[in-house]
Structure formats: C-alpha cells, structure tokens
C-alpha cells in the first residue's frame, strides 16, 4: 500500500476543494436560473475522482458520466472553461454544444462526460486498446455509477477488456443509489468488485471511496498493473451522494434525512483529509483556510471569465459535426 507524500496529499486536498467549490457555485447558479440544462452534483464523492486521477498523467485517458465535473477537475480540466460551458459560452470546452454532461478536453485526455448511463465504459476500453496497439504506457480509466453496472455494455466491456488484457481501470462509484433507487432494489450484489470482478477473471478491489488515501493506495496497484501489461482492474469505491440526484431533486423521498446528515458528518472526504493534514502532517487550520480562500478567489475569476465570454451565434449550431468539408 502506497502512502502519498505530504505534497501529494495537499495536491489532493486542493483538487477536492476545487471540485466542492465548483459544485456549490454551480448549484447556486442553477437554482437562481442562470444555467440551462441538467446539473448532477458530485458533492460528497470528491475523494474517488481525486484519489484515482492523482495517479494519472496528462496523456492518460478518462471517460466520465452525467455526474462528471469532479472527474474532469481531478484530471486537469480547468474550472473557467468548464464554467463557461455550463454558461453555454463559446469559451467553454465544447463551445456551448455539450453542456454539463458532455464536457471533454483532448489535451488532458478527458474523452467526455456522457449522458447515457454506462456508455462511456467501452470508450475507455478503446482508449486502452489504442495505447496497447501504439505500444505506449498510457492507461484509461472509466468512471461510472452503481446503476451503470446493470447495463449490458458494462458486462460486455469488462469481459472484452479482460480477454484482451487492456490497460483499463474500471472505477465504480457506488454512491448507493441509481437516481432514486437504492442499490439493494436495483441489484442483489452489494460489493460490486468482490462479485463481478471474478466473473470476468480480473482483480477487484473495494475501498472506502470517501477516504482519498485509501482510494489513492488502491489505484496505485491497479495503475501499475495496467501500465505493466497486467490488464484491467475493477475498483469499487463505496461513497455517498450528499445532494439529490440532480439539482431539482431534494434527495429525500427515497432516503432518510438522518442518513444523509450522518454521512455528511462522518464521511466528508475533505474534512477527513484536513484532519490527517493537521494531525499527522503538521499543517494548521489557518494554512488550510488560506488555501481555501485562494481557490475561492480563483473560482471567482473563473465565474467572471464565464459570464463575460461571448454566447455562440445561433448558426454556430451547424459547425463541428463533420471533419473536413462535409456539410450537415
């Protein structure tokens, strides 16, 4: 089990804060009617994205989900261009064509969030196949939810990746709900890695997905195996969604308020890492607060950037569909 250095821990603390701040701001903006479309917040699940992506290089790949902001920030996506996309501006990652559920960034290996549950999973296998055929050491990570593990394409892809020994890490974020359906009502298995990884003859690991240090340690092993040609791993991160399924869902009709409050009190990944940084790494609360302020200022600037960016022209809708000279 690898333990990260203090610098790495601080990096992860920073990334988790970046995500939390981004999500809180996006939620507020959405509720005040400033953002169009859908919004699925990642609040509470930050440790999974950050613990995983801390092991990745810029040229490694990820595929993401409808709840993708955390993955993107953890992989190196910039908050200003993400925010601009939420505002549907030309400076957004997709020039306003994708929105929250389709953000991608070729430069940092982000092959896209995805509006179809489970659909990004084979894309990651393909990126892994590409790396293998090109003879690079790149790996691909696919993030998906517990609900997505009931999709055929999850099973198809795990099987294919195992057969082809692809350098892929399949990361299930088991936040215990698929929309409003608790896990026990949508599948019989609870520990997805323990049961489903052996079914495809690949290693499976289950970790506390709200403990970034545990996620970090587990992924270290999986990424090393993938880079060395040892094939895929299924990682099951036990986490919890603090907010509703999307911004319009209060998230209380299918679970108890007490349960949510208990999770927030006991399992907030940011507060947990803060405690480690203070108790074991000699940092002070003031230092952490200063970092928080610095990142909040950065987010303010990102918001300013987004709001002051131009809107697309209506007829820009006709661009970007085809490569070359073919017209829609």
């Amino acid at each position, binding site marked *: 089990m690898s333990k990260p250095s203090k610098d790495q821990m601080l990096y992860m603390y920073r990334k988790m804060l970046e995500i939390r701040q981004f999500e809180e701001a996006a939620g507020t903006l959405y509720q005040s009617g400033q953002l169009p479309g859908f919004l699925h917040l990642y609040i509470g699940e930050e440790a999974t994205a950050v613990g995983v992506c801390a092991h990745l290089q810029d040229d490694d*790949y990820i*595929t993401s989900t409808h709840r993708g902001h955390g993955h993107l920030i953890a992989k190196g996506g910039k908050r200003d261009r993400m925010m601009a996309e939420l505002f549907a501006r030309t400076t*957004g*990652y*997709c*020039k*306003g*064509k*994708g929105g929250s559920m*389709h*953000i*991608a*960034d*070729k430069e940092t290996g982000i*092959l*896209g969030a*995805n*509006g*179809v549950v489970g*659909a990004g*999973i*084979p*894309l*990651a*296998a*393909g*990126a*892994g*196949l*590409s*790396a293998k*055929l*090109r003879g690079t050491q790149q790996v*691909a990570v696919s993030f998906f939810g517990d609900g997505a593990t009931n999709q*055929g*394409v999850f099973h*198809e*892809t795990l*099987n*294919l990746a195992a*057969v*082809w020994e692809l350098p892929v890490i399949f990361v299930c974020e088991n936040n215990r709900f698929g929309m409003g359906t608790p896990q026990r009502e949508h599948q019989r298995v609870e520990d997805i890695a323990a049961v489903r990884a052996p079914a495809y003859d690949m290693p499976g690991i289950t970790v506390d997905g709200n403990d970034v240090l545990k996620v970090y340690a587990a992924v270290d092993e999986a990424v090393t195996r993938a880079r060395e040609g040892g094939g895929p791993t299924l990682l099951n991160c036990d986490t919890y969604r603090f907010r509703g399924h999307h911004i319009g869902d209060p998230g209380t009709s299918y679970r108890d308020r007490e349960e949510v409050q208990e999770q927030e009190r006991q399992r907030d990944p940011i507060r947990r890492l803060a405690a480690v940084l203070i108790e074991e790494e000699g940092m002070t609360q003031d230092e952490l607060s200063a970092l928080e302020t610095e990142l909040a200022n950065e987010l303010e600037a990102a918001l300013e950037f987004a709001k002051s960016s131009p809107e697309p022209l209506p007829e820009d809708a006709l*661009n*970007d*569909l*085809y*490569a*070359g000279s*073919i*017209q*829609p």
Partner: protein
Amino acid sequence: MKTITYRDALKEALVEEMERDDAVFLMGEDIAEYGGAYKVTDGLFQEFGKDRIRNTPISEAAIIGTALGAAVTGMRPVAELMYIDFTAVGMDQIVNQVAKIRYMVGGQLDVPLVIRTQGGAGRSSAAQHAQSLEAWFVHIPGLLVVMPSTPYDAKGLLKTAIRDDNPIMFIEHKLLYTEEGEIPDEEYTIPLGVADVKREGEDITILATSRMVLNALIAADTLAAEGISAEVIDPRTLMPLDKDSILDSVKKTNRLLIAHEAVGRAGFGAEIAALVVREAFDYLDAPIERVAAAPVPVPFAPVMENFVIPNADQIADAARKLVRYEI
C-alpha cells in the same frame, strides 16, 4: 484492368490500407481464423497478426464503443458487424456516441472509424438477417453512409472511408460478394459524395442503391429492347449525397423512378423524392415512383421472399408506366 469479386475487392482495400497505415486495424466477430462470416477478411490474420485482426466477443455494443475509443485516441479502426440487423444491439453506441461525440465536444475529437456491415435479402436468411436499414443511419446527423454496388466502387470507397476522419457506416450486400467486376491494377480511390451513372439514357432516370443497381441495369436492358432509354444512377454514398448529379439526370430525362431494397415507408427513396420535387419540380413529366420492399419483415420461404423484395421486372414495369404517363 483485372476482374475481381466484390469480396476480394473489399479485401484488397483492407490489405492496402493496413499496409499503408499502421493505425488501421480490424476488429469484429470471427474475423480472424474463421475469416469473417462472409469471408471478406479470410487469411488476413496470417498476414497482419491477431493484434491487428482482432476477434471480438459477441458484444456489439462493446465492439462499437471500443472501436470509438480507439478512433478518438489515434487509431483508425475498421469494426465489422456481422449483419446490419445486429446494429440494433449496438445502437446506442452508434447513434448516441459515435455519431455525436465530435459535435458534442465542440469539434475537439475526430472519429476515423469505419463500421463495415452487410445487409440485404435473397438467401432465405429471414427477418433478422436480411434487412436493409440504411435509412436509420442516414437519418442520424454525424454518420456517413456508403453502399457500394460493384467491386470497383467497393474497393475505391472502402479505401476512402478508411482514410476519412468521420464515422462511416459501410454497408455491403450479402448477394454481391460473389459478383465480379473490373478494377484497375493500379491504386485508386473514389471520393465520397460522388454518384455514378451506371448507364446513360434519355427517357427516365432510375436511381438505385446497392444490389438494386444490378436489377435496375437488367430492367434497363429490357426497356431498351422496347425502345425506352433508361438512365441508371447509383448515388454510392447516401450521406454525403451527390444531389447535383441526381438533379442533372432528372432534368435530362424528366422522369424519376427510385429502386431500393429497404421497405418504402420512410425509406431513403422518400428523401430523394423530396429533393427532386423541391429542386426540379418543373422538369418532371410524371410523378416520382418508388419500387421498394413490401412493408413486412423479410420472410423465410423463397417464394415469399421473392415476392417481398423488388426484382428487375417490377422496376421495368414501374418505368414503363412512368414513361407512358400522360400529363
């Protein structure tokens, strides 16, 4: 020039493009030792190895999704779906992922992906192995659709498709694999979006796709014996579509008959009819007619299958009526 089958023409295209570009590789069910269900890739694994001629599990969604992932990260996959009927099993990946990813991400990612598949009736393959589903894909913005009818077109268009940076549904016809035709000895490609006049004529335009081009040519022979000069035009690529050549032909002959093997209802022929009515209405001396499959699943019994799928006689009949039509 040399004479070659449609199957071997396709194989030549695959071999030449794999030799030319290391990024090109093939994946699909039973394409290696087995050689592909219709033997198009027969023997290729011996030449290129199983890294580049990849047998997949029977997992259509994963085949397409994985090919897409490889396509957006530097490879140029040619993914084979054994029957076009099975695209339905992988439809989310084709329609929601492959077709849309470039657009959704603001043009950041190119998708140099060819999905080779085959359709069509004529071998008693019945309802789940004999459909003509090209209109589904023409309907989806983001996909290109290629349907070659001759060995020459098959080779030239497949090479172009592999080099193109857009996702392409390359739809072959199971009855065409053994058809022979001439191709040049030297290398050639055929651009997308260029129709081919397969036979010139004056009195009526017959626009046909895939195997119906062969039937249209037989019909044109019959009609010629009766003094009717039919022009046969094959769009070859349904998207992009060579509208100009189609309109030029109709403006010359003043009559249009469309023949395709898919069912008529909401079929590709309806799109052509709408185009011609809008752009060449004043030139038409007769209504536009369509010859297409009856709107039922493809039946098994040869007598019923023959009844449902259009033949050369039906095309000739329809053409005669249009030529005799009095305004």
